[in-house]
């Protein structure tokens, strides 16, 4: 079933180590890649689906990850997550470029895939085998595209303040869609007005309060470093779980609105089946035993 849901563009590798490294790339199972202009022909001769890198076509985004600001006084001990999902939603249909530092290419690929955007990822050479496994994993679960699911609309005025609000609601796993005007399918449509809290964190908290936790499409328990995306239609849902921490998360509890008695789990670089599953009383809950960087859960009514 996993292959039937949520087809999106698969991320691609940007590789600038030269055609002499073709064997290494092939060993990682990678056949499609972007290369510096001028190397395209050599890579094609080596048997790759190679395209020249056109920097103007891609928007560079920060490397994803988590920062534990132990030495910074703050109102919360929750770690800072650097995530790009809100950026992708702000500019739909964009193409993105990650210059991923060591250890981050797999997360970048998962983030781009879960958000359904085209992305090219400059991976560190040491990450190539794992990055290749990630691409193979994503290819294995890729399938039909289902629309992204959201709880509320955001009318984006393009301001930095609204950008930070979107960042913080995404960080709280409050799912939104950027809309041009208030969308009647949502109970809540958010825009910045004269009465809005100036502090984006307070604004995000207010959105959660107005929405209420009971109405949230998805909630997670047991981690503050996993972000969620949902795709679905009336009968099927794909739950994307992206772990930004760089460490395995053991035992993540997920709750979704709606009863989905059938499920399948696919986890990158981890094994296991969903545990403590229930679909009753208008909700579905389960535990993902272990998440390395990314897991996808497909649910059916």
């Amino acid at each position, binding site marked *: 079933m996993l292959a039937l849901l949520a087809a999106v563009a698969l991320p691609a590798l940007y590789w600038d180590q030269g055609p002499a490294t073709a064997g290494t790339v092939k060993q990682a199972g990678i056949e499609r890649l972007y290369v510096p202009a001028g190397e395209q022909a050599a890579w094609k001769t080596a048997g790759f689906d190679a395209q020249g890198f056109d920097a103007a076509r891609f928007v560079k985004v920060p490397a994803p990850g988590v920062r534990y600001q132990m030495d910074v006084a703050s*109102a*919360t001990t*929750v770690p800072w997550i650097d995530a790009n999902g809100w950026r992708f939603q702000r500019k739909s249909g964009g193409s993105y470029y990650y210059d991923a530092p060591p250890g981050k290419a797999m997360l970048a690929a998962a983030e781009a895939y879960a958000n359904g955007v085209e992305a090219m990822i400059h991976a560190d050479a040491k990450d190539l085998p794992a990055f290749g496994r990630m691409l193979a994993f994503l290819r294995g679960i890729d399938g039909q595209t289902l629309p992204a699911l959201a709880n509320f609309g955001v009318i984006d005025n393009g301001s930095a303040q609204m950008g930070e609000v979107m960042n913080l609601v995404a960080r*709280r*796993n409050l799912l939104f869609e950027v809309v041009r005007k208030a969308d009647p399918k949502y109970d809540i449509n958010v825009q910045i007005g004269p009465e809005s809290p100036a502090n984006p964190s307070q604004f995000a*908290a207010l959105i*959660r309060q107005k929405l209420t*936790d009971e109405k949230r499409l998805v*909630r*997670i*328990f*047991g*981690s*503050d470093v996993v972000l969620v995306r949902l795709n679905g239609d009336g009968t099927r849902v794909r739950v994307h779980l992206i772990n930004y921490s760089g460490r395995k*998360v*053991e*035992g*993540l*509890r997920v709750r979704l609105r709606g009863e989905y008695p059938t499920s399948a789990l696919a986890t990158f670089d981890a094994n296991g089946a969903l545990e*403590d599953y*229930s679909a009753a009383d208008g909700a579905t*809950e389960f*535990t993902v*035993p272990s998440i390395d960087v990314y897991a996808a859960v497909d649910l059916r009514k």
Partner: protein
Amino acid sequence: MKRRTFLQAAAATPAAFAAEVRDPLPKYRIVTRYQPATPPGMPGIFPGTVARVHAEKAIDANTEKVDVATVREMMTRGMRALTGDADTRDSWARFFTPADVVGIKLNCSGAPGTASTPEVIAEIVRNLGIVGVKPEQIWLYERFQNQVDTMHYDRYLPAGVHIWTAEHDRGSIQSYDPNTYVEVTFFGEDDTRSNVSRPVSEQFTKIINVPNMKDHGAAGVTGCLKNIAYGSFSNVARSHSGPKSNTYSFIGTLATVEPVRSRTVLNVMDGLRGVWHGGPFSPNRKFRFYPKQMMFGTDPVAMDRLLLDVIDDKRKAENAISVWDRSMDNVKAGDGYDNNPSINRFIREPGHIEYASKLGLGVYDINKIQQRKIEL
């Protein structure tokens, strides 16, 4: 639970700290499939009764060497005094049968300085053995592996006794029961659930709670209630932020959750060592003291009510501010609290014990608590 503004009564509270206008209590939602026993373990079959044994020889305050024979005698006399039985075996048999799977709730937050004393735990295990509970049916449990590791309980116990912790990796909820929890929002945190440890709900038939006598920066003191509540559930540290702690209502609420309440049938307060400031941790020996006593009971409120006086009397003797002090002038962020007993990290909430009594967990009124004191 109804949201309300609570004006704490002045009854047993020093007059200077009597009137406290509180914020509305958080709205708690308890989710459990377990039904209460009759009677529930807390306050149990001896509500309002505490057996209290003091023995000067129990521990050497200089070397911290524990006298095993004295500990044995303290436990024997304490359990007999609690139950009124002439035979110690009968005392233990009131609570445990050979069929029971017994969880022993350690307190290791102050480990290795002040934690459930291994010799005390060993004596509890020995007595369980006498009534027929096999070592394989006994589980010492605590939340954090790194704390328990420092205590080396295995060196004191017969083979087969299990030592179990919920979090090998801090923050993981894998070893908690996803279907038994308290849901509450304190400070807008996203993870609003605190789940009970799996063996508490799925495995143990009885629990023995073994707290220490300790000061606590947020709760005022930490005894029976705090140990069984915060020590059996996940994600509880979220109840404090800035100067505010929600221990006032959260501790008692957690302790009422079934099956925790019904299965916790015996409390053995290990007061060989204690902490009079800086608790629940105990890194600083200058704040350690030696009450050299143990309390036995089924009523955690009554025992903790007595503990309040133990800690506050010691703090008074050391010219420290009272556990009842709520002045914001004395609440300071930073490291000062660790070395200065007249600084508070949070507004302390020793009223959590009286609040727990209102939830039916035991007797708070000092005049209604029957103490059976023994001096060895």
